[in-house]
Each structure stands twice: as C-alpha cells, then as structure tokens.
C-alpha cells in the first residue's frame, strides 16, 4: 500500500513538473517574454531594468529554475491590469466558481438520480426512452447554446429569474456567498442548471446502467422474496449500491465542471475564475493566465490522485494489478 502511494505520488509530481515546463515554454519560448512579462507601457529604460531583474538575459534552463522556484513560493507574477499578485486575484474569485460548481453538482444528483432510476426500472417504457434520448442531447449540445436558451426563456420571455451576476452576497467564514441570500439564490439557479447539464446526463446514464445491473442481483431478489416493500427494495437495497460509482464519477467530474464553468460564467457574467481567465486572455494578462492554469492543473492532479488512492483502498484489485504491471 505504502509503495503504491509513493509511486502514485511520484507520478503526480512528475505530471505537475511536466505542466510547469509546458507553461514555461508557453509563456517564455512561444512569443516574446519581454512583451509578455513587462507592461507594454514601460519605456526603454524600464524595459532593460526589468529584463535584467527578471533574468531574461540568462540561459533558458536557469530561467526555468527561477520560474519554478517562484512558483513554489506561490509567486506567479503580478497582474498587469489589476497590479495585484496573480495568485491572490485567482483566490479571490475562486469561491464564486466553487459555489457554482457545487450547485451544479447538487442539481446533477437532484435531477439525474431520479430520472436514471426511473429509466433503469422501466427500460422499455416510452418515458424512459425519452429520458435517454434527452440525455444524449445533454452530452452533445454545446452548453453555451443551452445557456442562451435558458436566458431567452426564463429571463427574457418569462422574466422569472435574473440572468447576470451573482446578486447580493452574505459572508460566511470570511468569504462572500450567494446562496445565503434569497436573491443570490435566484441568481444561482440558471447558471447552475446550465453548468449541470452534462453531469445530469452522466448521472442519468450511470444510474440507469447501475440499476439495470443491480435489480438482477441475488440480494435484490432475496429482499423481494422476503416480502419487503418495493420502495424499500429500491431505495435501500438498489440505490445504496449504485451510489458508489455515481458519487465517484461525480467527484471526478468536479474538476471538469470547474474548467467548463469558463463558458457558463461568460454567459451569465458570473464573477468567478472562469470569467477572470477569459477577460485576462482578451487583454493578454499572462501572469493571471499562468496562475489560473497552474491552479486548475494542480486541482486536477490532486483530484485524480485522491480518487486513485481511494479506489485502491476500497478495491484491492486495482493495487495488485498496478504492482504486476
């Protein structure tokens, strides 16, 4: 187990290192680093001073080491636009994105699980076919289009829900949250649904497949034979067992939900990291771009690592297979 952990940790570290190299190459080798790292308003004197200060006259590998060293200290440069450390800027925007992503995950389970259960218990019914067909749409439709339609129907035509911004926020643990105020909650609904669409489809498919497999199991037959009520069989015996894959996949998907919130945040003007990164790409605020990508990549690698380790704890086969390979 320990060996596996260490091996896995080393792999993750390697991937992180590889990512820093890619980011470094992206910022320093492609394009002119002087233009990227020094504000375009700087005059010739300032430029030269900055080149010397940033060590851009030194060999590339040495520059990379400095970059890495600074990154380890959490110094990813200052934003040109806000003149604040890029990392601080990202961290300020992170709660909004996390809130959105959590709300989307919540919706995915809330909508996906009952529909998947229904479709799994009645695979031949017309309603189930409709659910499955709709779930294909959830996979294939570009989410920005669905977001626009949501705005068109619920915000413009019906006027039920607001379509831009976070609304009023309230403080909890020193961070501002939207879901603590009624109006903030109303602002949260449309973006969260938009972001959850892909996951709803995923949860529906997983639940349906799980249910169809589980209802054939002996323990379910036995529970029925014992004379338990149908609702108890389904909600306790079946549902409990399909929750494991559903929760794992939803957790694994959390990272990509955060990545895809870039689109949702742009549509709904949600002031999170995703909107920040798009705005930064527009104005070429590279330190912020690098900081965002670093944080997201780190988040992904940590998520994958945690899930892998959890799996190997829960399922010894994973561990053994890896040792053999």
């Amino acid at each position, binding site marked *: 187990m320990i060996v596996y952990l260490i091996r896995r940790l080393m792999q993750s570290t390697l991937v992180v290192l590889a990512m820093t190299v890619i980011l470094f190459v992206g910022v320093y080798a492609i394009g002119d680093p002087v233009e990227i790292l020094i504000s375009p308003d700087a005059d010739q004197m300032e430029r030269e001073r900055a080149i010397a200060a940033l060590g851009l006259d030194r060999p590339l590998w040495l520059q990379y080491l400095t970059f890495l060293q600074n990154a380890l200290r959490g110094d990813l440069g200052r934003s040109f636009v806000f003149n604040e450390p890029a990392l601080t800027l990202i961290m300020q925007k992170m709660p909004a994105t996390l809130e959105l992503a959590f709300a989307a995950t919540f919706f995915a389970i809330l909508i996906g699980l009952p529909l998947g259960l229904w479709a799994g218990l009645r695979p031949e019914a017309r309603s189930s076919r409709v659910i499955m067909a709709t779930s294909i749409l959830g996979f294939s*439709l570009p989410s920005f289009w669905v977001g*626009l339609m949501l705005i068109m129907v619920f915000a413009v035509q019906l006027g039920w829900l607001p379509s831009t911004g976070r609304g009023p926020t309230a403080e909890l643990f020193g961070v501002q949250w939207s879901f603590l105020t009624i109006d903030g909650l109303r602002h949260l609904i449309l973006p969260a649904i938009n972001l959850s669409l892909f996951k709803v489809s995923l949860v529906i498919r997983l639940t349906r497949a799980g249910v169809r497999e589980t209802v054939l199991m002996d323990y379910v037959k036995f529970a029925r034979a014992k004379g338990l009520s149908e609702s108890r069989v389904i909600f306790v015996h079946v549902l409990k067992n399909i929750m494991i894959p559903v929760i794992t996949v939803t957790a694994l998907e959390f990272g990509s939900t955060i*990545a895809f919130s870039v689109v949702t945040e742009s549509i709904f003007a949600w002031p999170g990291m995703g909107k920040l990164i798009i705005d930064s790409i527009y104005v070429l605020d590279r330190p912020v771009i690098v900081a965002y990508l670093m944080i997201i990549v780190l988040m992904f690698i940590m998520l994958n690592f945690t899930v892998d380790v959890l799996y190997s704890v829960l399922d010894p086969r994973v561990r053994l297979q890896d040792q053999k390979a």
Partner: protein
Amino acid sequence: MSPPPAEATTVAAPIAEPVRAAEETPFRRFVADFAESKVALGAFICFVLIALAAIFAPWIAPQNPYDLAQLDIMDGRMEPGTVGGAGFTYILGTDDQGRDMFSGILYGLRISLMVGAGSAFIAFCFGTGLGLLAAYFGRRTDAVIMRLVDLQLSFPSILVALMILAFLGKGILNVVIAIVVVEWAYYARTVRGTALVERRREYIEAAECLALSHQRIVFRHLLPNCLPPLIVVGTMQVARAIALEATLSFLGLGVPVTEPSLGLLIANGYEYMLSGRYWISFYPGIALLVTIVVINLVGDQLRDVLNPRLRK
C-alpha cells in the same frame, strides 16, 4: 471516412431486398443496414443537405456576409421577413451590422464544418498513427504513448483548448491546432484497443513471415482492419470539434470577427437577446444544434451497424 454518396442510399433503400438475394457486397449490406433506421437515414439526408448548403453558400446566399461593402448598417437589427435596402427579403432578419442572418448562417456553417471536419481529420491521422505505433511495437513505445493519452484525457477539452489559445492567440489555424491536440488521444486509444486484438490474428503473422516491412504491415494490413471503430469515433469527433469551435468562437477566442462562424454569430447576437431581438442568436444556434445532433445520430447508427457483435 467519406460517407456513402446520397444517391446510393436513396437508390439502395427500395431495391434492397432483390439486391441482397442477387449479390451482396459488403458496401451494399452496410448501406442496407444503415438505412434500416429511418431516423438515422433522415439524419444522414439532413446532413447531406446541410453540407451542400454550406458548400454552395455563395450561390444560395443572397448576400456575401463577409464583404463589408455589401452590408448596409441602416438595415441593422431588422426583424425576420423585412425587406431591406438592397431589395431582397431578410428571411431570418439581420444582425447589428446589417448582415443578412440567412447568408451569415450559410457562410458560418461553411467555417464550422470546415474547421470541424478538417481538425477531426488531422486528429484522426495523428491519433491513428500514434495508436498503431503503440499497438504494433508495444513495450516502451506503447507505455510512453499511452501515458500521454491518459494524461491528455484526464484534462477536459475546454481547458486544453484554452491553454493553447492563451499561448498562441486566436485565429482559425490555432483553433484547429487546439482541437487536434484535444482529440488525437481518442483516436489513439480506440485504434490501439482494436489493433492489439488484430495484431495477434493470423494474417498479421503471415505478413510478418513474408518479411514485409513494418510500414507495409501496419498500413496495408493492420490499419484497414481497425477502421470500423475509428469511423464511428471520427464521426462523433467531428460533432465535438464543431461544438468546441463554436464554444471557443463564442468566447471570443476563435475565428476573427470579420468572418464569423456560427459560434461568433451567436455571440454577436447575445447582447441583443436581452432586449428581445432573439433572431440574431437564435437561428445560428438552431443551425448549430441541428448540425451537431444530425452528425451524432449518424454516428450512433454507424456504431450499431459497424459493431460486429451486433451484426445479425
């Protein structure tokens, strides 16, 4: 990867039975199997129509939406059905610059389909090549390539695309590069899985005994037998590529403003939607939606038809 021509499907459907009895070629059987699903057949015909409309856009469209001289700002934001200053009816309305939406959609479809099909094809070549290498040579080659695939697939497409566009800047070529980088891994994984099975077959052994060159074995013997699942993945990836291009263009990171694709047309209309001028965003959206759904339906049926396990 080219789909069967339109007339073949329409001809084969009514005379499928007698032909089957007379002489059954693999292609005819494929066409007959495919046409069994009316939905898929309809989707395919729909796709052909969309593709034709995109190809012949300059002859169909009443206006060249990229030629700024033809745009009349006075005709901006006109409702669908109004007759503009140029004398023809804007059947789908105009956008803020007086661009006829119908023409804009036809030209936008062109870009979307070109970028989608083009980048999916390049990704196909790269991914298939690397996947075949991994399966054929095994060992270290396999380990390195598949690690790369795993790494690539653990990051969502939008993140990879954002990273590339953040470094390279916007533009059609960079969008194509981004999509290729996002998609190659799917082909590599698919072809490797199939090729590993095919590799152990006798015909490969026979080819090796004849001392044929690696190149010949891989491309003339192994690759053709790995094609069916690749065609299915390829079809789906074209739809994904179109969706990704539209998303990136919508975010303002894709095609240039002067030559809008569907995604950019939608983005242009976005701000006017809140004031009730829905058509600027709505119709390009419908075009995009129909294109993606139709390709997915065709891909779905291809998967059923090309899967030997499901074949009767």
